[in-house]
């Protein structure tokens, strides 16, 4: 018989066991009688010799080897029966658990998809991204085209590829539309080890200046504009006013840094952008695949070596520039990792509180079931067997909560991702896979074990006989201590979450009240692509921009308009080194300023205060003296408290050899966001007239300019009229990335707001759970003490004394909990401080708000049981004994 058959024939085996033991007894009795004992005595002696029949049977069953299976089935049935008997408790426990496990599972699903699962390229762990570093700028992603070319040629360990941003208007086929594009080096697809779904990747001879204009289009554009037809290969695409031949379709979902629809060969950028030949212009992103047989350490060593060669050879541009490589996955994911782990910790705390809560409920039930358990011990149940039964019950509760939690997670993971502020990297890959399911099952079983352990460990506390004799009133001191420990830990955990939410709230409040440095109201900003037909020569481009300004000014509701390349708090930057003496300081000591090229009305549009001198006017042009306006940070750093107007600074990257004249000083603008600006590396700012941008750079500038307008009507209402007015003769001048400045300011705090919202919800849940826990435990305590209270009242205690007794007891627990929680909250504050930018350290005021909230809520929860205790009728209470 194998174990399955034995299990199957359980009933028959039980009968046989019974029969065998009966046979033994009868034989023994017969023999004793034959020896002359009376039948009664013989029966007694025979039974004594054999021992308790049920105990012997239990031991025989144990010897069978299928015990665990039988017990499990039996315990499961028993647990189900218990659940049915207490549907209210079961429902509340399942609800709390499914919320906790569901939320934890959602967080883990996102972490799993974004951080843990490898990228969907072949051998993703061999893909790296390259970074540059100088003392001056810190670490940055940009590489100059010439450095990229040299590194690609020299590297033995890495196969390099590069790309850069290049959006433009697609005017044929379909309606004119602005699309994001990338210029990619020919090796990019082979480096990633993917191939286009249709057609082919770029050939090396196409990745040359002046080569034939070819393009690879995204899967999305192919579906939209070509109907997903394979004949799209070889057809023409008018992009930036120029016909391109489509040679390939990128795989669906293919992404570099954000979405793109049109890919063109990188080196063809040399046709229009002189910066491609400038070693100081670092705007390419570079990635690489480790060649077979080399590891990341070798790749990094070689990159450092190459960077040193380049620094020796081109000290003017490359002195102090080092290069290194990081795993690509880390780069793509960016800094969302810390937010995700933070949230997982927060939901983990909520789940922990839920577990403690259920544990205390279960324990209360276990104590009241003590007599039942003692009875079962007397009837032959082993203690480990009873403990196992308790654990089976809680594990089932845990798994039930887990199943509901997974269902909840399944329904809410996509809404959660959509709710994420900004764009979550790899968001489209987020789904529940087997790893998430394993996590959910693990979390449920662990929770079940956690809250089942205390009741299970209680089982063998005392001898069965004593318990049976003691009656219903017995309550072990141990259980009281354990219950108090539960309440204390719930309070402490809740305080951690409350204080974290409080700190985030205070931070957000402080950040929101910061002056952004400009007037955020009634301003809209949008990128604008000039009609490709107007990009012929520098004069045409200048005239086209002037035309845009004139037309925009005529739109009703528009008060003033300016062009600018960098909008505060939006992506994009241009940091340039400068100095204030004729001889430049060594490169690593040159200060850096954020430089924006603007038209004269910019100050008025943004409402930036003018501190000294003047802003630009129409006389600052290509023929007149080069001028800049600096912000007060730069003025203070470069010229101290002295008057900066009339001073000169050297900004070689702006083209001219000589210095430029400072004509004005304006207020500092929090360009890097309300939260991020104080910690940013580049804090100085300067403005220079778009009219003085040298002619060779104009074509490039045309691709990055934005239009900003101050309006007399709500700015969103001005967008459509502006869009219509600026469309141009060919109808292909498109406004895109339209924002109001209010939106951008608010978006700069999106991460803090998001965290505050979630922490607030978690803290609220924790508070609620802790209050339920306190209520439950106190109600249980006072219920056990009814006779004692009766005695007290008979001896002269009044209801107020009784209330004081109960509330005092709860206050002790609350204050110990607050004390423990305070220490934990300070530690949590440190973690938050490191992970969230602009975070204010935990201070007394945070706790001055959160602790009273917690204490009052907890006292409120204790009030109901206290009142009930004070209304005990002494006579009934005493009679209960």
């Amino acid at each position, binding site marked *: 018989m194998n174990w399955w058959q034995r299990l199957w024939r359980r009933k028959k085996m039980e009968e046989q066991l019974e029969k065998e033991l009966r046979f033994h007894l009868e034989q023994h009795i017969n023999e004793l009688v034959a020896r002359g004992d009376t039948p009664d005595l013989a029966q007694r002696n025979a039974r004594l010799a054999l021992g308790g029949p049920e105990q012997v049977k239990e031991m025989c069953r144990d*010897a069978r080897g299928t015990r665990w299976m039988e017990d499990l089935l039996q315990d499961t049935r028993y647990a189900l029966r218990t659940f049915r008997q207490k549907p209210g408790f079961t429902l509340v426990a399942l609800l709390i658990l499914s919320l906790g496990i569901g939320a934890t599972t959602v967080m883990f699903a996102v972490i799993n998809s974004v951080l843990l699962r490898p990228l969907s390229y072949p051998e993703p762990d061999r893909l790296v991204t390259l970074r540059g570093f100088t003392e001056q700028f810190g670490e940055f992603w940009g590489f100059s085209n010439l450095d990229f070319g040299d590194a690609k040629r020299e590297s033995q360990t890495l196969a390099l590829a590069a790309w850069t941003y290049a959006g433009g208007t697609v005017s044929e086929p379909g309606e004119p539309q602005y699309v994001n594009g990338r210029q990619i080096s020919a090796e990019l697809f082979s480096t990633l080890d993917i191939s286009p779904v249709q057609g082919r990747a770029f050939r090396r001879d196409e990745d040359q200046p002046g080569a034939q204009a070819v393009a690879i289009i995204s899967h999305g554009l192919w579906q939209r504009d070509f109907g997903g037809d394979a004949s799209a290969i070889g057809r023409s695409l008018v992009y930036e006013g120029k016909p391109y031949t489509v040679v390939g379709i990128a795989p669906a979902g293919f992404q570099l840094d954000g979405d793109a629809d049109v890919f063109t060969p990188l080196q063809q950028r040399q046709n229009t952008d002189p910066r491609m030949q400038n070693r100081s212009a670092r705007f390419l992103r570079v990635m690489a695949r480790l060649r077979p047989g080399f590891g990341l350490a070798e790749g990094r060593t070689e990159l450092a070596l190459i960077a040193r060669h380049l620094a020796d050879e081109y000290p003017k541009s490359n002195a102090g520039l080092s290069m290194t490589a990081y795993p690509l996955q880390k780069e793509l994911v960016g800094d969302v990792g810390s937010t995700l782990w933070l949230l997982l910790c927060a939901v983990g705390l909520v789940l922990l509180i839920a577990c403690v809560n259920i544990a205390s409920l279960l324990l209360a039930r276990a104590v009241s079931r003590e007599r039942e358990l003692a009875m079962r011990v007397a009837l032959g149940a082993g203690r480990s067997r009873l403990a196992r039964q308790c654990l089976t019950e809680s594990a089932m509760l845990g798994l039930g909560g887990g199943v509901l939690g997974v269902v909840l997670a399944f329904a809410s993971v996509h809404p959660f991702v959509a709710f994420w502020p900004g764009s979550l990297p790899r968001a489209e890959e987020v789904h529940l896979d087997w790893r998430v399911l394993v996590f959910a099952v693990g979390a449920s079983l662990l929770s079940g074990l956690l809250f089942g352990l205390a009741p299970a460990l209680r089982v063998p506390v005392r001898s069965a006989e004593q318990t049976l004799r003691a009656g219903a009133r017995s309550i072990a001191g141990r259980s009281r201590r354990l219950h108090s420990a539960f309440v204390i830990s719930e309070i402490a955990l809740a305080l951690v979450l409350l204080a974290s939410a409080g700190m985030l709230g205070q931070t957000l409040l402080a950040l929101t009240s910061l002056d952004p440095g400009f007037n955020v109201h009634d301003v809209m900003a949008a990128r604008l692509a000039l009609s490709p037909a107007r990009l012929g020569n520098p004069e045409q481009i200048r005239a086209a921009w002037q035309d845009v300004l004139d037309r925009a000014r005529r739109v009703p509701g528009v008060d003033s308009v300016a062009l600018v390349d960098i909008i505060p708090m939006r992506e994009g930057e241009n940091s340039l080194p400068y100095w204030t003496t004729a001889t430049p300081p060594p490169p690593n000591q040159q200060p850096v300023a954020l430089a924006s090229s603007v038209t004269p009305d910019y100050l008025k549009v943004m409402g930036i205060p003018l501190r000294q001198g003047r802003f630009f006017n129409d006389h600052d042009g290509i023929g007149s003296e080069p001028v800049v306006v600096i912000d007060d940070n730069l003025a203070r750093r470069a010229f101290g408290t002295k008057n900066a107007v009339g001073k000169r600074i050297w900004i070689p990257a702006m083209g001219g050899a000589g210095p430029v004249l400072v004509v004005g000083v304006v207020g500092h603008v929090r360009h890097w966001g309300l939260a991020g600006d104080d910690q940013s590396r580049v804090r100085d700012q300067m403005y220079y007239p778009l009219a003085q941008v040298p002619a060779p750079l104009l074509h490039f500038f045309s691709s990055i300019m934005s239009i900003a307008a101050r309006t007399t009507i709500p700015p969103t209402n001005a967008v459509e009229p502006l869009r219509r007015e600026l469309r141009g003769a060919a109808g292909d001048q498109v406004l895109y990335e339209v924002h109001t400045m209010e939106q951008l300011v608010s978006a700069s705090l999106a991460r803090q707001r998001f965290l505050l919202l979630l922490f607030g919800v978690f803290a609220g849940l924790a508070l609620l759970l802790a209050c339920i826990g306190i209520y439950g435990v106190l109600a249980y305590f006072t219920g056990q003490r009814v006779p004692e209270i009766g005695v007290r009242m008979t001896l002269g205690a009044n209801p107020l004394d009784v209330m004081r007794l109960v509330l005092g007891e709860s206050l002790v627990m609350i204050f110990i909990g607050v004390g423990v929680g305070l220490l934990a909250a300070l530690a949590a504050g440190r973690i938050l401080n490191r992970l969230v930018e602009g975070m204010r350290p935990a201070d007394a005021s945070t706790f001055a708000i959160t602790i009273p909230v917690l204490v009052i809520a907890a006292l409120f929860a204790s009030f109901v049981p206290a009142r009930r205790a004070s209304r005990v009728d002494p006579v009934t209470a005493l009679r209960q004994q």
Partner: protein
Amino acid sequence: MTASKTDLPQGTLDLLILKVVALGPVHGYAIAQRLEQVSRGVVQVPEGSLYPALHRLENRGLLTADWKETETGREAKFYRLTAKGRKRLETEAASWQRLIDAIALILGMASGGAR
């Protein structure tokens, strides 16, 4: 039950059962009887642990059992040794013998060495 009876050393019950069963098919009560008789009442067989031990040995495949009639016409569960059980009995008995010899040797040496 007198105090002069000796408790079984740990782990020997299985061996004794195997030995008794090796003599021919036998039921539980007879095993208890025979153990007590053969040991001349020195060994007290704890009847409460006899049946769990029988079931354990059956479960491990050392014993097999079937229901047969006794000479008095009652149905009883008779245990027999399997081939595996016989082999186990031999090895266990041999190792017990070695142990007993070794202990006897040590005790004998101790009394001689004291002089």
